């Protein structure tokens, strides 16, 4: 951060003092856009078009695939895999809510109460990124192991009886259950919730809290009427940054779940890499994308964040 505020290096004494003619500078913005646009075209737009065409192809590996505009693939994929779609949305939503419940108090603490510990806590929040996603998720396998402290403790406290009854866990196991997958998702995406929340909380003028207190609002009312509404941009971006990748995730379900907890990401992965049914995999990808886009649009409309400048 501090490097941004440093003074720019002095110009070399040989630099021409005269300004370049205006005409040359006119296209500068477009030149600056070029690398980004090229990148997007090659690595985003072209693969998307390729995927789209794949999704309407028919054929087999041996005979090759041809575009036959076979839209029925979409319908077949949806009617076969809708349970995994629903499960993905449900798991992702659960993980997002958990992230919000865990992340908000922490972000609030960092923004308003941490004082000189602020940077340390921020580093602790970001620290997991220094390890691979896969390793971190594998670590949870150990944490939630059947003979591990966590499961043993939860079992002896009869918490597992309740969660089993709810269908979140199975018997005295946590691993290979929905709870394990949601825990993994929550853990892995928590920083994506905390960082935007922190940013928007930290921007709130402390005098607004004082003003609310001065106008007879108790601390909790101040939070409900002032702090929380003003942190809405952070809540919205945090939930999106958590929900979207969580809905398409397959690592957590793969490592911490079972065949009963397969998410749509797992299905796509299997279709692509094991069954080699490319059209179905591509169609599923597009359905997922469309579904997320629709939900996100609805969500942003409803939360009305465009009012919060």
């Amino acid at each position, binding site marked *: 951060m501090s490097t941004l505020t440093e003074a720019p290096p002095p110009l070399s004494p040989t630099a021409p003092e005269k300004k370049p003619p205006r005409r040359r500078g006119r296209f500068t913005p477009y030149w600056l856009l070029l690398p980004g646009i090229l990148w997007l075209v090659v690595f985003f737009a072209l693969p998307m078009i390729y995927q789209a065409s794949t999704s309407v192809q028919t054929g087999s590996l041996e005979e090759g695939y041809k575009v036959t505009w076979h839209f029925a693939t979409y319908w077949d994929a949806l009617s076969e895999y809708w349970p995994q779609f629903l499960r993905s949305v449900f798991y992702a939503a659960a993980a997002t809510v958990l992230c919000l419940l865990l992340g908000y108090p922490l972000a609030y603490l960092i923004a308003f109460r941490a004082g000189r510990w602020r940077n340390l806590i921020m580093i602790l929040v970001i620290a997991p990124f220094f390890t691979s996603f896969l390793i971190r998720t594998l670590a949870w396998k150990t944490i939630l192991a059947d003979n591990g402290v966590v499961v043993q403790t939860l079992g002896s406290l009869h918490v597992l009886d309740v969660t089993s009854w709810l269908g979140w866990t199975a018997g005295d196991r946590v691993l290979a259950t929905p709870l394990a997958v949601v825990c993994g998702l929550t853990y892995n995406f928590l920083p994506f919730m905390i960082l935007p929340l922190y940013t928007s909380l930290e921007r709130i003028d402390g005098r607004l809290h*004082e*003003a609310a*207190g*001065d*106008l*007879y609002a108790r601390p909790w009312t101040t939070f409900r009427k002032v702090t929380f509404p*003003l942190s809405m941009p952070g809540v919205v971006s945090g939930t999106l940054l958590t929900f979207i990748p969580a809905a398409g995730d397959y690592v957590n379900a793969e490592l911490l779940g079972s065949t009963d907890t397969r998410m749509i990401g797992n299905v796509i992965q299997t279709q692509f890499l094991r069954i080699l049914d490319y059209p179905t995999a591509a169609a599923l990808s597009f359905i997922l994308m469309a579904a997320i886009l629709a939900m996100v649009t609805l969500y942003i409309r409803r939360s009305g964040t465009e009012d*919060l400048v």
Partner: protein
Amino acid sequence: MKTTPDNSGDVRLSGISKTYGSFTAVHPLDLTVPEGSFFALLGASGCGKTTTLRMIAGLEEPTTGTVRLGDQDVTHLPPYKRPVNTVFQSYALFPHLDIFENVAFGLRRRGIKSVKKQVEEMLELVQLGEQARKKPHQLSGGQQQRVAVARALINHPKVLLLDEPLGALDLKLRRQMQLELKRIQTEVGITFVHVTHDQEEAMTMADTVAVMNGGRVEQLGAPADLYENPRTTFVANFLGTSNLIEAEVDTKSGEDIVLKAGGGKLVLPEARCSAPATSGGKVLVGIRPEKISLTHADDAGSIPAGRNRLTGTIADASFIGVSTQYVIDSPVCDELSVYVQNVERDGRLVPGADVVLHWSPAHTFGLDAAQDIDAGTEEEVAA
């Protein structure tokens, strides 16, 4: 809307102080603001005036002492339990609420359901009826300022605290808002405690001004009284401009003190001297620039007897419309300021001219010479 005078709007600070670590922001302070008065805390930044205000509001806990509103000890009450409202510096309006909801905020928090009529009346009072559904960032600085006042006043606080409320406005708007605030205060009759660094603002608006310096109250009184009878060099210099001349006490004659300054004699009413005047002791003689008359040295004979006189040379003259401000170098004191109304201008009074400065002894005041003669001047405050 005037409340009955049961003194419940009195603010009584006794022995309150505030220290942060080893830094003392406010030294133990006793202050009583009578109900219904417009009270100004005046001082340069860092003098402790805002801290004092925040202690009344409950936003800052005093290190020692008590804060009372009327007979109620509110020292340890949180802000939301105090019958006090604040107009914050830079307003602190809620950016996510419209003007109506900003103003209604305090009423709603106290569980009042039908706020429409009251809010509309209040918005009328501050002439913002049309803007009710706008967001704060859509309003100008002056309008936001009025919203801040309305938001606080609608709660009928016993005391309204104003923390540099006009600081962000340009000069013309500031003058206008000063009169506006004064009008509102007269209309609602609530005690106003106003913090400002602008001495002109304090003098225009307040009934009583407390001049603060270094966490202490230097002097407290009506604006005219403070201006005419400053008791410290800080007050003399901070409130308007003063010419301070070092002089030696010669004799006392009746109710006057006669002083020697650079060979000449100056007369000072003893009642207006805040320093002990012992023969041979030093005293600072003060005179406001607008009380001095200028006469060209050639006409010195026409000056009536009994007036204090000094001779000097005009170093600089600047015409500022209603008056001309002269800087005069005199043997007793460099750079004396003299303001002369532009009624009958003497064409000979140009830089380089020899002049006699003279004024009525009644306008002279005396200060303790042990003080820093430059305390409270602009250069000193800026440093």
